[in-house]
């Protein structure tokens, strides 16, 4: 096991099962967003959680401004983790942009993965009339980035992360243990620009894995029309429309989210058995 990658991406491994299930968070927050969902998989699966470089308790020193200027940098994080843990046939669960990062990872190394579960995915947030409605005009995304600039969520850490390089003051690092959504503003801004202006529509038809799309109701970030587009473009996909409203059903409606995921995985299992007989 490559301890460097494990430390770099703050990889956490739980669960009693052997089938790996890897949870890729969306924009902004760390792996603890999964806490209410991942628990129910610990009985039967090997649950793997991680933070992207720059988020949560990852190694901020490993943040490379150029590498993470495209989603490929984050895709590489996922592939590094699979390789470090020698994972195969992983079920990748991604939220929001995490589902796109997972999908791109599966295109680069299909052997690592067996299926994709996408929660609130969008291949492209910008509108491209007349054929594609992503939900946003460019100005609105810039407005969002401006709003991030005016929210000092990561400011304390931006300051503290420079102090914590000092090995003589470990107590400062301890005080910061809980980062959650607070990210260095420079890193957060970079991630935001990378995520919000990505366009992966052309990749969708190339996906070979079986995919589940969990589509929330009234999701302003990934509207239903985008979920339908995904479903239509992905060769082997299932879409489930959730009762949950908003963009974070894994947090606001963990029960419904877990149930839909389990149902899908059960179906997959019986399909496989069916196929063998």
């Amino acid at each position, binding site marked *: 096991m490559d301890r460097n990658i494990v430390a770099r991406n703050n990889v956490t491994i739980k669960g009693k099962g052997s089938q790996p299930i890897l949870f890729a968070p969306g924009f902004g927050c760390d792996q603890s967003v999964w806490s209410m969902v991942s628990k129910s998989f610990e009985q039967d699966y090997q649950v793997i959680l991680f933070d992207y470089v720059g988020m949560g308790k990852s190694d901020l020193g490993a943040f490379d401004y150029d590498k993470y200027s495209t989603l490929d940098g984050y895709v590489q994080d996922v592939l590094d983790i699979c390789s470090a843990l020698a994972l195969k046939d992983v079920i990748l669960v991604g939220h929001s942009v995490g589902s796109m990062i997972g999908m791109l990872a599966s295109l680069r190394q299909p052997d690592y993965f067996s299926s994709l579960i996408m929660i609130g995915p969008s291949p492209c947030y910008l509108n491209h009339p007349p054929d594609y409605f992503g939900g946003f005009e460019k100005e*609105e995304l810039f407005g969002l980035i401006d709003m991030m600039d005016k929210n000092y969520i990561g400011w304390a850490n931006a300051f503290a992360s420079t102090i914590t390089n000092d090995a003589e003051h470990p107590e400062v690092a301890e005080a910061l243990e809980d980062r959650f959504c607070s990210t260095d503003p420079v890193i957060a801004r970079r991630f935001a620009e990378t995520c919000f202006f990505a366009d992966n529509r052309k990749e969708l038809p190339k996906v070979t894995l079986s995919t589940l799309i969990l589509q929330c109701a009234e999701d302003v970030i990934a509207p239903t029309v985008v979920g339908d587009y995904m479903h239509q473009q992905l060769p082997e996909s299932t879409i489930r429309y959730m009762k949950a409203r*908003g963009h*974070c059903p894994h*947090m606001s409606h963990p029960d419904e989210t877990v149930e839909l995921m389990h149902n899908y995985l059960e179906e997959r299992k019986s399909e496989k058995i069916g196929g063998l007989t």
Partner: protein
Amino acid sequence: MDEQLNQAPCGFLTLSTEGAIVSMNEMLLRLLGYRRDELVGQHINVILSNSARVFFQLYFIPMVTQKGFVEEMYLSLATNHQSEEIPILLNASMNESSRHKLIDCAFLPMQRRNDYEDQLLLANKVAKDALNKKQIALEELEAKQDQLIKINKQNQNELQLAKKIQETSLTDAFTNDRMQVESYYKASKELSGDIYGFYQINNHQYGVILLDVMGHGISSALVTMSLQSLYQKVIPKGMKPASVMKELDSHLHYLFHNDEEAWHYCTAIYLFIDTEKHTIEYINSGHPPAIYHDKNGRQEELCATNPPLGTFEGIKYNSKTIRYAEGSRLLLYTDGVSELIGYNYLQDLLMKSRNAVSQMKEEILLELNQKENSYYQKDDQCFILIDLK
């Protein structure tokens, strides 16, 4: 909701965990221009600006769900009919006391503070942009400098090669039973505006020439090379000094005919030495006087007989002739030498020194070196010492 909270000087709102509006105070309704029944049951998105809707999903929901509270979140609210955006600060906490979990939110409008922050951010951006531009300019400058250094190095190499070529065109020191010749040649830059040559015409006649083209450096050096290629042809033929000088003068006029910008003139002295007749026939075209010194200590100056070459067209060149005694000595030099160590020094040296010409050359060099250390050398240096045996 109690009346105090209803009228409190801040917006107050209760949300379901999904973000649906459960209740709100009067203050917030007034701020946004809605009636209560227009908002209750609606999603909070209704009162958020487009950017704020996304931000709310990205940060507010995860934070309040996970941590149970949100502090100092900046959002912008949209008033009724989307007529206006109101920047606000939001604090929220998860209220788990009631049957359903509810999120309590308090809003404070912050229009003026927001304007101020906008200006701060703008100033910050301007400063960053300026810093970036400076960095880029600096990098460009460094690249240009590297380029210049490279070009300069190429030029230096070229000049070194040219220097070699120029020095190759100089004739070597020689000695026989009639005379001994020593010379010294040093450019102020890589290339020199001085040039000289000595030729044995036959077994008793010799030609010695020294030229100093105005200026120094590349252009002067090119002129010296042009003149050199001419005199090395005409002198060995045994042409008289007047003819040699006429040729060189005409050549300069021909080169710079109607071209004032390129025009160069040159001072020159040419000696035609006959060892049978013991005569020196010479022409001095504006050059510093050569010094003749006989073994009895008598000195004679071979002063200018004509203006410099390339100045006036159609000049008639008349030579002068002196007789020399055996054991006499001649010193020819350019002004780069005499201006540095002085004409008198040269005169005295010839007078005092009984050394061979090779040693005398070293003495002059020593003096030149000493003077060079105290003055900035700016002209080419060249001299010729001849022992007439």
